[in-house]
């Protein structure tokens, strides 16, 4: 049986750790609440954005624009693909980072010419170690997503796409499927695919025919698509951020729970050790006294 001071110091150290995990739990739960509010506030915008774009595409099947150019001349294995990977800035969030990175790794294996745009320190560290090509000027944090950041990111990406430095652009992020479940997801941002909008089953009945683009379809698309990309990135940032906080909250809750369990077990051991020590002392005293009496 371990000795009492040992057990006591162990309990103390677990208690300290528990304080930290508990504090992190509280912090991430408040952050999560804020992130959720943001997510709820943006949701109507995204639904409308997607349904409107879908509607526009639906009614203009013959639009010929760079943003719709699938660049079929280039063989699929030679395409220059860009991936925006959204990870957290720190760990302690269960499998959150791991899931995103795993999906990214799988996708990277499919092509030869990949460029990564990593958001968040965890992902950047991971891919630097693996010697994958990362755009080093692309430095953004995953904390507190803002429209301003989304605007800069979208601008960089659209620019690279237009200059044909990238042929396809994807986002890998974590989606909040239900308030308790988050899953890594991959979406293609450019070029726009018609069926990808149809998959996003947004209600269509509300919208009918569109007669005109003012001043011309090209000009409208030039403005509309970067705007759409920006909105999409903003949405993904918000989703990722709230998934991260959610994952961290759950992980820290689990950690606090197991710390409590360990303390419970250790205090049992401690009491037993204490009891044993007392019993031993009594036996010693009694036997000593007896030996004295016999004399």
């Amino acid at each position, binding site marked *: 049986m371990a000795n009492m001071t040992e057990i006591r110091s162990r309990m103390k150290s677990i208690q300290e750790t528990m304080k930290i995990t508990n504090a992190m739990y509280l912090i991430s739960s408040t952050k999560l609440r804020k992130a959720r509010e*943001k997510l709820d506030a943006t949701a109507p*915008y995204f639904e409308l954005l997607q349904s*409107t774009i879908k509607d526009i595409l639906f009614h203009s099947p013959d639009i010929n624009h760079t943003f719709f150019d699938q660049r079929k001349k280039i063989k699929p294995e030679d395409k220059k693909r860009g991936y925006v990977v959204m990870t957290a800035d720190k760990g302690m969030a269960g499998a959150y980072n791991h899931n995103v990175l795993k999906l990214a790794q799988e996708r990277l294996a499919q092509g030869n010419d990949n460029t990564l745009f990593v958001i968040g320190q965890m992902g950047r560290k991971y891919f630097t170690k693996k010697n994958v090509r990362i755009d080093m000027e692309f430095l953004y944090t995953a904390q507190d997503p803002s429209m301003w950041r989304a605007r800069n990111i979208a601008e960089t990406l659209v620019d690279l796409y237009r200059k044909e430095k990238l042929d396809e652009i994807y986002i890998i992020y974590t989606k909040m499927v239900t308030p308790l479940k988050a899953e890594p997801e991959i979406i293609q941002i450019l070029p726009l695919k018609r069926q990808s909008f149809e998959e996003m089953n947004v209600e269509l009945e509300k919208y009918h025919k569109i007669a*005109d683009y003012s001043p011309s379809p090209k000009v*409208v698309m030039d*403005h509309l698509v970067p*705007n759409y990309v920006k909105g999409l990135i903003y949405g993904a940032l918000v989703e990722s951020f709230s998934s991260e906080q959610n994952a961290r909250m759950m992980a820290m809750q689990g950690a606090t729970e197991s710390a409590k369990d360990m303390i419970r077990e250790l205090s049992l051991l401690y009491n037993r050790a204490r009891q044993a020590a007392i019993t031993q002392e009594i036996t010693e005293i009694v036997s000593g006294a007896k030996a004295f009496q016999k004399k």
Partner: protein
Amino acid sequence: MGKTFYLEITASDRKFYNGECEMMIFPAIDGEQGILPNHESMVTAVKTGALRFKVNGEWKEAAVGDGFVEIMPEFVVLLADTVEWPDEIDIRRAEEAKERAQERLRQKESQKEYYHSKAALSRAIARLKVTGKHL
């Protein structure tokens, strides 16, 4: 055929306005554009600027960011990065932003920076315009 159409204005962070409207004037790519009920269906882009719409004979003003608008005979959907009422705008902040942008424009900047500064300037001017403090 009523004298109003249904107007829906949504910003990236909230639903801004939902309701009947008699007329709307928004900043399009090539100048301001007015919409009356039973307008021909159309899709166009919105530029940063001042948006005006008339509800019950009363004009309302707001500052809009970049976005786009879908116009149908019975309804209009306007989607923009930001939409703000005049009383939500911090005038001093907008003035500072305007000066900052003008200062940056005087310096030699890269093309990208130049566009950023110009966009920032037009946002600041749009905000000042709807608060009535601009010239």
